[in-house]
């Protein structure tokens, strides 16, 4: 590949020797080197450190993201059924007795799961890459919806409703977590469009 540190210009057959042009080359090469107005190293070092931190975070969060993705895929059919509000709970379900009522240990499991997802999201929020404006808006919307679910949970009396609300909370936390992972996913998927120019 290209390497002309030896500057063997005259050996280049495509170059036609013209004394005037050669003199222009000499004049250009004689121009003094200059230096940037300010020391660029501190900014460069800071960028490198930030990217190192982000890269480590990717390696830390990618397995978690994979797990989250898997969990989301498995839970998808359940997550997208219409939310059943207490007022619209089918009578038949209630009439069928305790069959439709989730056991207390199921609610406990959902609650524990919700706590785990919340801890994961908080960790991402603290250590992750900053979100852009659009993602930030989405994150705030998710947080608002989680707050609304919490409000409904505090008023819920029906175990079935409670279970549904906990499930909604988990889903929202998963979506919020995935939102925090988006900068990394975009970074890892971005094609290196100029790599072909850099190989030597």
């Amino acid at each position, binding site marked *: *590949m*290209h*390497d*002309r*540190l030896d*500057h*063997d*210009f005259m050996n*280049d057959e*495509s*170059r036609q020797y013209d004394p*005037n*042009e050669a*003199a*222009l*080359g*000499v*004049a*250009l*090469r*004689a*121009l*003094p*080197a*200059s*230096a*940037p*107005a300010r020391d*660029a*190293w501190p*900014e*460069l*070092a800071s*960028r*490198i*450190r930030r*990217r*190192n931190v982000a890269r480590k975070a990717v390696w830390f969060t990618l397995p978690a993201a994979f797990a989250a993705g898997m969990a989301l895929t498995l839970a998808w059919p359940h997550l997208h059924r219409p939310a059943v509000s207490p007022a619209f709970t089918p009578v038949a379900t209630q009439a069928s007795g305790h069959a439709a009522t989730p056991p207390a240990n199921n609610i406990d499991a959902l609650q524990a799961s919700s706590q785990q997802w919340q801890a994961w999201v908080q960790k991402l929020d603290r250590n992750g890459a900053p979100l852009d404006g659009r993602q930030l808006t989405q994150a705030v919307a998710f947080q608002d919806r989680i707050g609304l679910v919490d409000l409904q949970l505090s008023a819920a009396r029906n175990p079935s409703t409670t279970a549904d609300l906990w499930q909604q909370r988990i889903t929202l936390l998963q979506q919020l977590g995935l939102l925090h992972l988006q900068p990394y996913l975009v970074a890892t998927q971005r094609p290196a469009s*100029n790599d072909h*120019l*850099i*190989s*030597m």
Partner: protein
Amino acid sequence: MLVHPCSVDTPTNFQQTVDPDLIARLQRGELAAFELIYRRFERAAWTLALRLTGRADVAQEVLQDSMLKAFERARQYRGDAPFAAWLRKLVVNEALMQLRHDRLHVIEVFDDTLAVDESPAPWMQADAATVERALHRLPDAARAVLWLYHVEGYTHVEIAEQFGRSVSFSKSQLARATKRMRELLQPQLQVEVTPCTIGSTTTS
């Protein structure tokens, strides 16, 4: 006897060898090693970026981005070319990429029948500051081609590859740049450089 400036081993050019141990430390991701390398090549990289882009703010960006790539891609350096040449290639690529993104759509289009000017070349009498001013007044593509050809030693084929254009593009930009330099360095023939967008025609 004329001494080629690039043959002088000074910390202001890319004609520097880098200790393999230092490169190995860089490849292990040692920031301290990279700072040593950065300090050695900062001026050379900056100067090259400035000559190619013609603007200090863009050159600053090129310096940052190319050095960042040097750090992150250090492991890709296999040692089959001098490290300085590898680094210089990164700077050239980054500068041309900036030009492509920002301003290289402003390219002079002209016919390829520029007459050969046999009159004495004004750059032989001009001082460095005057030559530099004239260089910075050239259109982006013409300046970059002129610099790559005369100083970095690229061939027309290589320049064409870098720009994603034809060889005749490189040749015509070089001819135009040479002509403009001649005009700009002749005080009595001072001509304002007014780049035209692609699609327009400029007759000479």
